[in-house]
């Protein structure tokens, strides 16, 4: 977070939906990224198309930034509401940038040591056409001066952004930004900031874009979806690329269709995926079990948002862990992976497609709103790590003696060589009813208990095989740490940030992030946690779902927890505070911790 690092700055841009906040923020973040700074931008928006209160938090630094931070150095306020809500959250030494011809700010709106950067934006904007968002560009220019950031970098981004709209628009925007910069130079005190700009061009992307990019890289040929926040970003990125890369991108009538179509596509041999959030996932669960029974590869992403029910459609939560674990009736093989960074979301998605093909089962990518929708600078991806493994797929050129092929052959690994429709001599019927090795259903004439057990064991054996092959969980940090953090999904990041601070203060800290949620790596996770002094899980839900899952699978009860379910992401400050209390020993351990 900024305060702990002088070479960084936090900027908030606040206003109403439709005020063009995203574009201000994106221009700023892109400019920083291109100059070689790291940025992390989290947009706090509402379930409304126009109006409401929206604010984007942009954390900028020379070193990698892990989260949106806590308070802000600069607040660009596009309406009075924003000043009233956040004026007091600006750090001393910072200030509030706004159009003083539109908004009247009282000194009492701001904390002490916070500068009033009112600008006559309307007057200035008038020179550059009558687009209402022009005053945003002016504010951006002023900000550039105040954070001592090269104006040209901003101009460059504006130019590339608007060039398709023609020189006039480009010049207007660049002009407005410069005018804002100049006004600030003349009227505000010079900036205390100084930057060493590496100029390294980094990618700037969201978790959803990383997932979509990963799907494209993995050879996804069939993407189905029904729009749902916060998963729609995947659809929006893939839709315009489908016709460029030969991917059938299909918006369906509902999530039931999206999932069942994806199962059909996967069964037929096309790498298939769908994505949704908890509400849509509810409707997909029946087909998750179908995929498991047909042994059809399919990838389904659940991007979690605030629940229950429609809940908080645009807010952060990690409350669907039990839902994905309990998706569909009965016992069946499934793989659940929770990506934890934007980069990892890319690699994990590729991995999901491989695992789906190898184990011929549904693979659930469990993301969350913060991970999927926040923007972040990403160091270059390593494409040599992108390998495509189709598993035991029988070539469509193969032939077989009619009647000899057993689609569901009972094998030591549980994996049966898979033929797709169109392959000569391998005809079979894939059935959701229990069936024999050759696929013939056994539930109609006589449900042979012996055959049933063989097939159940064969399917479940795939999970034992997977458990052996999956990368093992790793404890980051010293073996003898005084405190061990446990995380999953996006909370990994705020905890990395926290740990840097704690280590600066000399604490010995370690960290276990749980990425492979199912099959659960009970032996390894249990051993790691039992070797730790004080364990502390940080997760974004009410009931402590991961904490419970860990106990269920390992018998180990984590000592301490910090849970959040108000819709807003964790900030480092609250995590640090709790961790320090725990280190001090002033937090009592949870009831079950230690009991057998």
């Amino acid at each position, binding site marked *: 977070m900024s305060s702990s690092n002088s070479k960084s700055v936090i900027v908030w841009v606040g206003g109403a939906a439709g005020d063009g906040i995203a574009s201000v923020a994106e221009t700023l973040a892109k400019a920083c*990224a*291109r100059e070689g700074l790291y940025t992390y931008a989290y947009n706090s928006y509402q379930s409304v198309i126009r109006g409401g209160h929206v604010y984007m938090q942009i954390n900028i630094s020379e070193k990698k930034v892990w989260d949106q931070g806590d308070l802000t150095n600069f607040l660009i306020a596009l309406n009075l509401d924003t000043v009233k809500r956040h004026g007091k959250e600006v750090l001393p030494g910072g200030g509030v940038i706004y159009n003083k011809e539109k908004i009247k700010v009282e000194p009492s709106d701001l904390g002490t040591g916070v500068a009033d950067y009112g600008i006559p934006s309307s007057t200035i904007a008038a020179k550059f056409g009558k687009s209402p968002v022009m005053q945003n560009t002016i504010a951006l220019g002023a900000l550039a001066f105040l954070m001592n950031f090269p104006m040209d970098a901003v101009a460059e981004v504006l130019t590339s952004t608007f060039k398709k709209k023609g020189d006039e628009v480009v010049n207007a925007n660049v002009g407005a930004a410069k005018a804002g910069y100049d006004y600030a130079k003349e009227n505000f005190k010079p900036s205390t900031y100084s930057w060493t700009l590496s100029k390294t061009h*980094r*990618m*700037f*992307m969201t978790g959803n*874009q990383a997932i979509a990019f990963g799907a*494209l*890289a*993995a050879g996804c*040929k*069939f993407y*189905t979806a029904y729009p749902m926040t916060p998963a729609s970003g995947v659809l929006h990125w893939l839709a315009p690329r*489908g*016709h460029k*890369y*030969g*991917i*059938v*991108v299909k918006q*369906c*009538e*509902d999530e*039931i*269709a999206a999932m*069942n*179509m*994806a*199962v*059909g*596509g*996967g*069964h*037929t*041999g*096309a*790498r*298939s995926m769908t994505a949704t959030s908890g509400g849509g996932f509810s409707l997909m669960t029946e*087909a998750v079990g*179908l995929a498991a029974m047909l042994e059809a590869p399919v990838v389904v992403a659940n991007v979690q948002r605030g629940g229950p029910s429609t809940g908080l459609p645009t807010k952060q939560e990690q409350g669907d862990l039990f839902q994905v674990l309990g998706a569909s009736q009965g016992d069946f093989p499934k793989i659940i992976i929770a990506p934890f960074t934007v980069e990892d979301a890319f690699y994990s998605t590729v991995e999901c497609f491989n695992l789906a093909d190898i184990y011929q089962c549904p693979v659930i990518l469990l993301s969350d709103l913060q991970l999927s929708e926040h923007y972040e600078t*990403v160091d*270059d*991806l390593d*494409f040599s790590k*992108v390998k*495509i493994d189709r598993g035991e797929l029988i070539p469509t050129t193969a032939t077989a003696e009619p*009647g000899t092929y057993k689609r569901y052959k009972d094998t030591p690994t549980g994996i049966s060589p898979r033929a797709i*429709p*169109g*392959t*000569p*001599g391998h*005809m079979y*019927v*894939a*059935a*959701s009813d229990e069936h024999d090795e050759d696929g*013939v*259903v056994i539930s*109609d004439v006589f449900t042979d208990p012996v055959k049933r057990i063989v097939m159940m064991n064969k399917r479940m054996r795939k999970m034992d095989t997977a458990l052996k092959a999956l990368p093992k969980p790793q404890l980051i940090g010293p073996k003898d740490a005084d405190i061990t953090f446990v995380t999953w999904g996006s909370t990994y990041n705020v905890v990395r940030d926290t740990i840097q601070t704690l280590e600066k203060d000399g604490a010995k800290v370690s960290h276990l992030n749980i990425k492979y949620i199912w099959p659960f790596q009970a032996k390894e996770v249990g051993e790691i946690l039992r070797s730790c002094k004080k364990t502390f899980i940080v997760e974004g839900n009410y009931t402590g779902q991961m904490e419970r899952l860990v106990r269920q699978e390992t018998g180990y009860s984590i000592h301490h927890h910090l849970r959040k379910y108000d819709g807003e992401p964790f900030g480092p400050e609250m995590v640090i505070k709790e961790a320090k209390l725990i280190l001090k020993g002033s937090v009592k351990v949870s009831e079950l911790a230690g009991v057998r």
Partner: protein
Amino acid sequence: MAETLDITKFKSKIAPDWCPGCGDFGVLTSLQKACTTLGLDPKDVVVVSGIGCSSNFPGFFGSYGLHTLHGRSVAVAQGVKFANPDLNVIMTGGDGDGYGIGIGHFIHAMRRNINVTYIVMNNQVYGLTTGQTSPTTELGIQTKSTPEGCIEVPINPIQLALVSGATFIARGFSGAQDLLAETMVKAIKHKGFSLIDIFSPCVTYNKKNTYPWFRERVYSLQEEKHDTSNFDVAMKKAEEWDTRIPIGVFYETTDQATYEDLEPAYKFGTPVKQKLGLGKDEITALVNSFK
């Protein structure tokens, strides 16, 4: 259709376990005849069903098959077709499966005019669950779930298909197998979404709409030189019930482009046959698009 037709190619090793006399037997034989007549290769045919007596169909048919979820055959089948448009995709199921729980997929698939054939064994009852009302059960009929008589107006699948964009709409009767097989041949040949709603009597749970009941009433539209290009007449014909009931092709058009014609991604070829992964230049371009 030549009686000498050798349909063994489309027979599976499993003998159907429908009740003796079930209408579905006739539908099975007719589809075997139709696929044989069309000279299809069983490896290129995928029969996709939901759940129900009629949905056990794929298990008794000699081709690739999918026995999916109740009401989802049309969704899964479209996934199969999207992934590999070179396959002949045929959906088989019941009235409950298709017009009850599955009606949403049915209507939206017709809008897409995707090139698949949907064969509905309409016995106007829920067979496999031992005789409850179905969306095509007639008013007043007593079933296990409507002991006082059904009080919901039955679905009219033909009219529903007409207003929903299906481009080949027909009706069959499993008691008129040759006509049925001929109709199936036309339906499978047709480019676009084809529906055949088939009277396939449930001898166990439907005591009204029996073979004799239909035999007394059905007549062939084609014999009456019905104009299959006339939407309005088709709508009218679809109203007939009680005394005279038309079977055969109601409506057929090729004016409407198929989904396969319009989906831009297909210019790269059949999805399942494309090579996977990105090339160096593609990667560079994509990476830069984020910078």
